């Protein structure tokens, strides 16, 4: 009996604490989870955003490190905005989650990007990637799916023999090839542009082995029937590119503005 009491007590504290937490702060939120980046520093992201958002209303950013948790929130909540990758959105739509695109992130005027599989010039075909390491930023699942797309059909066996190394950023992935930590890298085209600027010699050593299909940058999605709260939230997002502070925050998400899509 003595053992059961503390267990009950802990359980009670969790249930009450969790319930209180869920009900205590009803402020509208932007829920964020991105399969394409591997941000380890959510604290900084949340703090920066919350400071910015507090000047534009009573809103909060809630980043997630686990996909399951993020998706659980979508299933439950209504009237909030979800920031996620286009790939992730498509996956959810296939599972009949009623989400639709409200805004698309832009970077230097573009709303879409391709992922590139690049390697040193002595790697001339996909087959040479067998038993090697491919570096990429993003969730393991996402990277796997993009790699599968780039390699094309009939390469399932090869895919099994490639080790994926998840790194925080695109630039890490492409530099990993230059410094010998990986044989190839998957990055956005902009990742290669950065390498060209920072380390032209390394850039010259690389070539592209394949490309993914074009896809949107980060997406702000809402549930199909938008209400007024969501419209306000989207409005705040859209105006972020108008101030320096807003742009600085957007850059932490890898974009510099938002655009509505038809």
């Amino acid at each position, binding site marked *: 009996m003595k053992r059961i009491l503390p267990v009950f007590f802990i359980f009670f504290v969790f249930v009450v604490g969790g319930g209180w937490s869920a009900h205590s702060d009803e402020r509208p939120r932007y829920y964020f989870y991105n399969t394409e980046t591997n941000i380890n520093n959510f604290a900084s992201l949340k703090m920066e955003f919350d400071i910015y958002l507090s000047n534009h209303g009573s809103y909060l950013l809630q980043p997630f490190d686990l996909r399951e948790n993020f998706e659980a929130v979508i299933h439950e909540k209504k009237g909030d905005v979800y920031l996620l990758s286009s790939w992730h959105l498509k996956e959810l739509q296939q599972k009949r989650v009623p989400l639709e695109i409200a805004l698309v992130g832009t970077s230097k005027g573009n709303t879409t990007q391709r992922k590139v599989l690049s390697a040193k010039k002595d790697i001339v075909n996909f087959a040479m990637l067998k038993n090697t390491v491919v570096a990429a930023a993003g969730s393991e699942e996402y990277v796997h799916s993009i790699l599968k797309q780039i390699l094309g059909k009939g390469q399932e066996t090869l895919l099994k023999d490639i080790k994926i190394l998840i790194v925080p950023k695109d630039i890490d992935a492409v530099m990993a090839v230059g410094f010998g*930590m990986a044989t190839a890298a998957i990055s956005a085209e902009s990742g290669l542009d950065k390498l060209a600027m920072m*380390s032209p010699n390394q850039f010259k050593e690389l070539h592209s082995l394949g490309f993914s299909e074009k896809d949107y940058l980060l997406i702000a999605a809402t549930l199909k029937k938008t209400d007024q709260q969501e419209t306000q939230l989207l409005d705040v997002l859209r105006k972020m590119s108008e101030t320096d502070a807003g742009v600085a925050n957007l850059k932490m998400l890898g974009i510099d503005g938002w655009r509505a899509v038809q």
Partner: protein
Amino acid sequence: MKIINFCKALILLVAFLGSAGFAQSNKVLIVNSEKAVYRYETIATEFKKVLQQNAYQWAEFNLDSHANVEAELKQFIEQENPALIYCIGTQAYSLVHNVAPNKKMLFSAAINWRRLDVGAGTYGVANELSSAQELSLLRHFFPTIKTIGLLYNDSFSREYVETIKKDALASGINIINKPIDDTQEIIGALNELLPKIDMFWIISDPVVLSNKESVQQIFQAAQQQKKPVYAYSDVYIEQGAVLSISADIATIGRQSAGLAMMANQDKVPGGTVQSPAGSMVTLNKCALDALKLKFNQDALDSVNKIVGCEQ
């Protein structure tokens, strides 16, 4: 001698050896120098995640939870018979190197791995980012910086500093380095060094960075002489560093796991030591503005985190 006795001896010896068979295992033994140290433990956690995904078995041995470490570790290795031993931290590496020199070994989180005796059966992920990578990023952020100074201890960092100097030369940066043996020498060395340099570089040297006071001394001296400080870790941003490019700890764990699996299958040459593949760039805009330091605006999108004065 009687030939019959010799034959008896030989038969016994052959029977003795014949009874010995061969066996292979896929188990990895993780030896952690000190479980309470955040960096070691984070690396271990990420490492285990990847092993789990790939259905590898592992066992763990934490050096700080054993009294007679050497003997107990030796026994544990014999008991677990791992295919590879993953050593987190220099202490773990040194010990395993002595206790089981014939085992395949992988290390990480060891400061300046070049000072270790790395043999054919040893693999590693360095603790420091490749200095060539750091320098190219540094040059990208601060194109006008020409001379960088650093303090180090010869026993811990000599080889690393030599590599930095070589890589710096290639990227057109001049490094002025000054060895110290004790933290008491920091002030004198800085007074001599700071007037000659454009930027001070804090490297992960355990003698220079012995305690909080030595860290404060560095930043106070740099501030007095209005010299920017660049650091290997973002923990120094709060102290006033303008920029930090740090190796991402979690990536080191994942990268080690990948290397461990490849090494176990002999798909990577022995003696391979990789630089960490993940980096984290933090910019202190507040310190930058205070020093009126020229900064390449195009490089901003390579920054993971920008810290302003309000924080």
